């Protein structure tokens, strides 16, 4: 953090950020408590921020607590990542129409998303966004639907000083500090926020806020809190487990974890980097048109690996192994790094509390 570029925004002025983003044409999406969890949704002003809210997380456990702290970003991530804002859970890719003649017309569905400002994005989710960018945009066939949504995002990151017990972003190298690809980044202290810009757009917005240069004491305190946040207990047994995992495809631990796994797919639904999706056909009842729809899928379902008369991964052992060997192993072959950003959601939201760090350590041993 270069001192000269870090500004101070006092707590009572945080509303100016929402005002500046709104006047720039963005709908503000911010964290808020709903159904006992933190979710991201439309937030018109700073009054709706989750003041005093903290979260307690453990394998298979999540609780939100409201206390007296003035802070609004003292919670670790809830179940929802940024994923739904760029990779829609369900969207129509194209539509086929047929009239009275035999002809079929194919009509592409345009994605024309509104401009969104995502507020309080954690480093783990920002890293996952970059992983999804690689998957959906960098190949031979970049996805225009994802591209349109991605283009309309303004990202306000928050350097995370409140990791949960399930977090392990420090061991994956993705957090708790947001490293790049944000427009603005905040560090929260009791009295206000340190703000830095990460893009030209961010600089433009930042100039409109009533800031002053941050003091050395403020910067030191923020750095100290970030350092404490990095002292996480959970860790993966290495940054590249590819060879260790593929050398242990028949490890007895896969069978053991399959005995606990319910194949419910919660881990893939909350994972910010999981990209699998199904394409399904939804014909109109009068058969005059049919929508070709893309929706999130999970490698834990029976149909995921189904080919005529055969399910390649027919049991939970094969499906859990596929998920972990892909996420922590073959992702390296595909995208040059692990597919795990250490957000810990799959641990928290697993109904039986399966811990990917514990399973990886058991399967890879200390050799990894």
């Amino acid at each position, binding site marked *: 953090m270069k001192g000269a570029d870090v500004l101070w925004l006092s707590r009572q002025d945080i509303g100016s950020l929402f005002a500046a983003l709104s006047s720039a044409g963005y709908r503000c999406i911010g964290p808020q408590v709903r159904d006992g969890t933190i979710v991201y949704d439309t937030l018109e002003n700073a009054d709706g921020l989750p003041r005093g809210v903290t979260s307690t997380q453990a394998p298979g456990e999540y609780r939100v607590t409201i206390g007296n702290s003035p802070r609004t970003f003292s919670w670790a991530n809830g179940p929802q990542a940024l994923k739904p804002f760029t990779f829609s859970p369900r969207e129509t*890719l*194209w539509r*086929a129409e047929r009239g009275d003649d*035999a*002809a*079929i017309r*194919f009509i*592409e569905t345009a994605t024309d998303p509104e401009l969104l400002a995502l507020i309080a994005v954690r480093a783990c989710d920002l890293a996952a966004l970059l992983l999804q*960018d690689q*998957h*959906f*945009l*960098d*190949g*031979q*066939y*970049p*996805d*225009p639907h*994802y*591209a*349109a949504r*991605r*283009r309309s995002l303004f990202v306000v990151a928050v350097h995370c000083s409140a990791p949960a017990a399930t977090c392990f972003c420090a061991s994956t190298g993705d957090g708790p500090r947001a490293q790049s690809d944000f427009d603005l980044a905040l560090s929260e202290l009791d009295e206000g926020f340190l703000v830095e810009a990460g893009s030209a757009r961010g600089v433009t917005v930042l100039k409109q806020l009533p800031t002053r240069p941050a003091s050395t004491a403020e910067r030191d305190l923020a750095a100290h809190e970030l350092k404490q946040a990095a002292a996480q207990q959970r860790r993966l047994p290495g940054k590249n487990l590819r060879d260790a995992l*593929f050398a242990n*495809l*028949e490890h007895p631990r896969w069978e053991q974890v399959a005995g606990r796994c319910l194949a419910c797919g919660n881990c893939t639904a909350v994972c910010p980097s999981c*990209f*699998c*999706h*199904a*394409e399904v*056909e939804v*014909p109109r009842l009068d*058969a005059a048109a*049919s929508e*070709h729809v*893309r929706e999130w*899928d999970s*490698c834990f379902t029976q*149909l*995921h*690996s189904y*080919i*005529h*008369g055969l399910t*390649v*991964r027919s*049991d939970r*052992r*094969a499906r859990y*192994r*596929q998920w972990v*060997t*892909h996420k922590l*192993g*073959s*992702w390296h*072959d*595909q995208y040059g790094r692990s597919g795990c950003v250490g957000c810990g959601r799959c641990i928290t939201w697993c109904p039986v509390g399966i811990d990917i760090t514990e399973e990886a350590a058991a399967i890879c041993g200390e050799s990894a």
Partner: protein
Amino acid sequence: MRGERVSAHLPMEAEVVERVQESPTIFTLRLRFTDPTQHAAYRFVPGQFNMLYLYGVGEIPISIVSDPEDETVIDHAIRVVGRVTRGFKELKAGDRIGIRGPYGSGWPLRQAERQDVLVVTGGLGCAPVVSVINFIMRRRARFGRLTIMQGVKHADDLIWRARYEAWAKLPNTTVLIAADVGAPLWPWHIGRVTELFDSIELDPLRTVAMLCGPEVMMDIAARQLTGRGVPEAGIWLSLERSMHCAVGLCGHCQIGGQFVCKDGPIFHYGAIRPLFGTRGL
């Protein structure tokens, strides 16, 4: 910003020129793009596949069996196995479907020139290599000895039988067929196709082997071939996985780090060997 191009997901309309019933459950769908410009611009290599769309039902990946230089029609051999293929079986000349492609990698036909070619297939999945056999037959002088080893479950499953019989009579060409279950007057081997390796002549250093069929069969065949001295670099195989998008996005076709739709479906043996023999990958 990345991702500006038009969606690769959108099919184009094609017309059924003819539907040829090859066996009780297998038929050939001969297609032509309804837009002549699109038809003229379409190019593929043997081994690649198209996504075929049945109106209101969905899309499936089907390999192309016609010759890449045939400008009149694009042929797909299809077995009736599910909702889409059952619908395709009812199509008549003039009916319309959707088509997008071609996708994936092709067979190494350039590498195979002036080499001996060994084609090994099993099950009913011979379509992806029949295109190769046809391709070689039409350009016979460019290739050395051609050996075709085809395994089927039941003698009745052998489609294009007349073609195999005609090929067997050609010079410098060997056809070996095996059926798990024979039939009266079945002139070929009864048993597994992989039992036939001892009876073939093989010049291991000038052989390009192309395998297609069940993974267990390909695993055994590839190990027999390396055992006979064929280097890994001379062995290629075609894999089959679930595919929804065909453009490397939906995630269904992964085996290890490979996306079968874009990194395959034709793989170099070395890329797949470490994963062969492990069930459920």
